[in-house]
Each structure stands twice: as C-alpha cells, then as structure tokens.
C-alpha cells in the first residue's frame, strides 16, 4: 500500500524521467533576428501607437461620460419600455385616446407611449407641423361624410398602433436600423395622411353664401 509520501515519490520519479529540454522543430533564430533588425520602425510604430493612445485617452473621458449618460438613459428607456411591454399591446391601446376621441384632444397628446423615438425626437418643427395638421383636420373633419370621418379616425388609430408596435420593438432592439427606418417612415405616413385628408377636406366644394 502506498501512502501519500510514497505517491509523491512515484510522481517525482516520473517527472525526472521526462526529457529535460525540447528542441524546436525548426530554427526560430532567423525570425527573431529579423524582428530585432526591424526594431527602429517597430519602435516608431509603438511610439505612434502610444501617442494615439495618449490622444484618445485625453478624449476618452468625455466620451466615457457621454456613454455613461447614454447607457443610463437607454437603461431607463428599456426599463420603462419593458415594464410597459408587460401589458399586451391591445391593453396598451386602451391607454391611448380612443379613435373616436376628438382630434384636438389627440393632437394635444404628446405620445408618452412612444417610449423610444417619440415625436419630440424628430424635432420641434415636426411636432409642431403634426400638431397643426391634427388641429386643422379636427376643424375640418365635419365637412367629411360621417362614414369617411370614422374611416379617417380608424386609420389614424391604425397608424398610431403601428407606431406603438415599432416603439415596443425598438425598446427591445434600439440599434435596429430596420426599426428606426420603419418608425421614421410611419411618422411620415401619419403626417402625410393628416396633410392629405386636411387638403381634401379643405377643397370640398363650398356652399353658396348667397
């Protein structure tokens, strides 16, 4: 029976039996010599790399700060989005103005439901144009036949439902260029629809004032 010491002795004997050195399969010196000869340029490139690193490290703290703030904002948006995302979309839809709600009221709503890339993200001019068009349409909507009014409101609600879906998807995948592009063009669709219906309602044949 071999004790602990006996086991260690056997291992040591086995180690001693192993080769003391291992010759390389090929001569490596030529490569090492070439590298030493090229040292000046290598040093220069190292210096350049160090200089670049120093330059970037001088710039890196504002980037780090900005990135930190960005991460915090994104984290907050994601958390908000996910928390809201726990409710089914149809349920969230009930939080929005009903499609038949007055358009003035809808126009006044800043889409806090758009948890990423809300109207304000498209700039104040865009938001202002949208609000003006919505108010203009609200004033002209009664010129349309009741059935057409309902269709306009139903389809505006459809566009806004699409915006919410894209926003929910963006909360989960904020870097998706596909989603960003779809979001932008859906905002454009909403604006275009408001403008088109506004124009059509505005051009409805006038009643005689006589």
């Amino acid at each position, binding site marked *: 029976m071999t004790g602990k010491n006996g086991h260690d002795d056997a291992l040591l004997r086995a180690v001693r039996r192993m080769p003391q050195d291992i010759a390389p399969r090929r001569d490596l010196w030529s490569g090492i010599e070439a590298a030493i000869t090229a040292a000046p340029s290598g040093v220069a490139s190292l210096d350049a790399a160090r200089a670049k690193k120093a330059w970037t490290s001088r710039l890196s703290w504002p980037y780090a700060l900005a990135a930190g703030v960005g991460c915090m904002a994104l984290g907050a948006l994601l958390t908000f989005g996910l928390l809201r995302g726990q409710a089914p979309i149809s349920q969230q839809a009930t939080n929005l103005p009903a499609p038949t709600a007055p358009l003035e009221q809808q126009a006044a709503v800043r889409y806090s439901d758009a948890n990423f890339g809300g109207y304000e993200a498209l700039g104040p001019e865009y938001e202002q144009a949208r609000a003006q068009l919505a108010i203009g349409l609200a004033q002209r909507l009664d010129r*349309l*036949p009741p*059935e*057409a009014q309902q*269709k*306009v409101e*139903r*389809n505006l609600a*459809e*566009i806004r439902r*699409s915006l919410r*879906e*894209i926003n929910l*998807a963006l909360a989960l995948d904020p870097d*998706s260029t*596909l*989603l960003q*592009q*779809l979001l932008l*063009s*859906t905002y454009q*669709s909403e604006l*275009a*629809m408001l403008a*088109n*219906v506004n124009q*059509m*309602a505005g*051009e*409805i*044949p*006038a*009643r*005689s*004032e*006589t």
Partner: protein
Amino acid sequence: MKAACAALLAATLFATQAVADDEEMIDKRLAADPAGEVEVSNVAGSVNVSGWDRAEVHVSGELGSGVERLVFESSGKRTVVKVMLKKGYHRGGNGETDLNIRVPKGSRLDVNTVSAEIIAQDVTGAQRLQSVSGDISTETSAEADLKTVSGTISLRGNGQSSQLDLTTVSGDAVVTRIAGEVTVSTVSGSLELSLDKLTRAKLRTTSGDLSVSARLDPNARIDAETISGQLTLDFKGGVDAQIEAESFSGDIESCSGPKAKSTQEYGPGSELRYTEGKGTGRISVSSLSGDINLCTR
C-alpha cells in the same frame, strides 16, 4: 266647386314647378384652350369626363336638389365647373348631381368630389383626381395624382412612361399598365398593381395588402415597405438588381433567390440579400410584421 278645381290646378302647377326647380337639367358649353386646365368639383352623384377633339368644354347633366347653382366659367387657360350647394344644405338631402363633361383631349384635369364617383377617359393631359369616398376610374398616359379616403381606384395606363402618385386611406386600388415612376401608399386598403416597365417605385402600406407585378428597368430603384400588411412583389422579364429584404418579425419568401436567413439567433427576424443579373438596379423591401413574397425571375 270651380274654386276647388282652380286651387287643385294651381297646387299641381306649383308642385311641378318645384320639382323642375329641384332637378334642373343643364346643357352648356364654353370655348376652352386645347391644352388648358379644367377644374371640376361636385359633392355627390357623379362626374363623368371624356376628352374630345374640340376646343370647348361641354357640360350636361342634372343638378340635384340642394344645389344653388352651377358655376361654369372660363378664363385664359382655366375652365371651372363647380357645383355650389345652397347655404345650410345638409349632406342628408338629395344633393346628387350627375355631370357629363367633354373637355379638349389635351386638357389638364383637376377633379375634386366628396362622395361623387369620378370617371375619366380619353384625356391625355395630367390628371389630379381626388374623392373622399367616391370611386375613381380613369385611364392615363400622363402624370396622375389620385387620392381617396375610402373610395376605390381603378387606373389603366397604356404602357407609356409616366408618373403616378396614388394614395388611399382605406380604399382599394387596381392599377394596370402604368410604367415609369410610381409612388403608392395606403393605410389599410388593398392595392393590386399590374404594371409595365418601372424605373422608380416607392410602395408603402401600413396594414393593407399590396401586390405588384412589373418589369424593371435595368437601373430601377424600388423601395417597398409594410408594417403589418402582406407585400407581394413579382418582377418579371429579366431583373438586374441588388436585392435586400428585411423583416423584424414577418416571413420572407422568395421564389427565385436564396432562402431568407434569420437575423437573430432566437428572434423572429429574417433577411434576404442577393444579386440578380448584373445588379445595376436596387430593390429594397422592409417590414415590421408583414410577410414579404418576392419573385425576381
């Protein structure tokens, strides 16, 4: 007895006169520029416009009750045909007015209605036709701008290159033999386009289905986008284009290119990229949850 008969006769005459006032027949004509603009507006009923070789505009038809008068005037290159409703007139009344209008063939046409349907034929000038809920049916070989909220649109081209801008909110559309540049958008309507050679197309739907069949110019630029509607693109006759299709959660099916790849290991996203022929044109298709069917044979 005599007095009673006279009263009855007077009442009958008065009623007849009232009906005549309510439903006035019209038959008017004015000289017009052969390449001028004809502007028409009507609320309910119909507007039927056809081109002819004469340098005049002829309006015939019947003005419905609720119509105050018909404005029919020409000044320079512009002729106006406008149905003016009585003040306080409500849509619920019988305000239907049917207008038959002959215009010089080369006229530029601008028609605007609420629920009146619009029919145009044999007019070679540019057309701007819009109706809130009336149907639009026209044929064109020139620039056309068609808009409706809920009416249906039927448009026929003749294969010549032109420019089409078609917008519906919930209305359906069928377009045939249009070529050149096409911009089409709908929120929830169903659009079916069977086109000739396209150089540019911008196609967009929110939730309606959109189907396009066309030949492509070698340098064609096609951008198609859907949120939740189904998008079917069938390009025939030899396609030279770089093709990119991407969907966040919809399916992408291709009858000619490779199979779509998944963009996320565990997510539903998919994309498809390949080059057909010389790759001189570009086809870009994107979707949120709508399915994409693409054929580039």
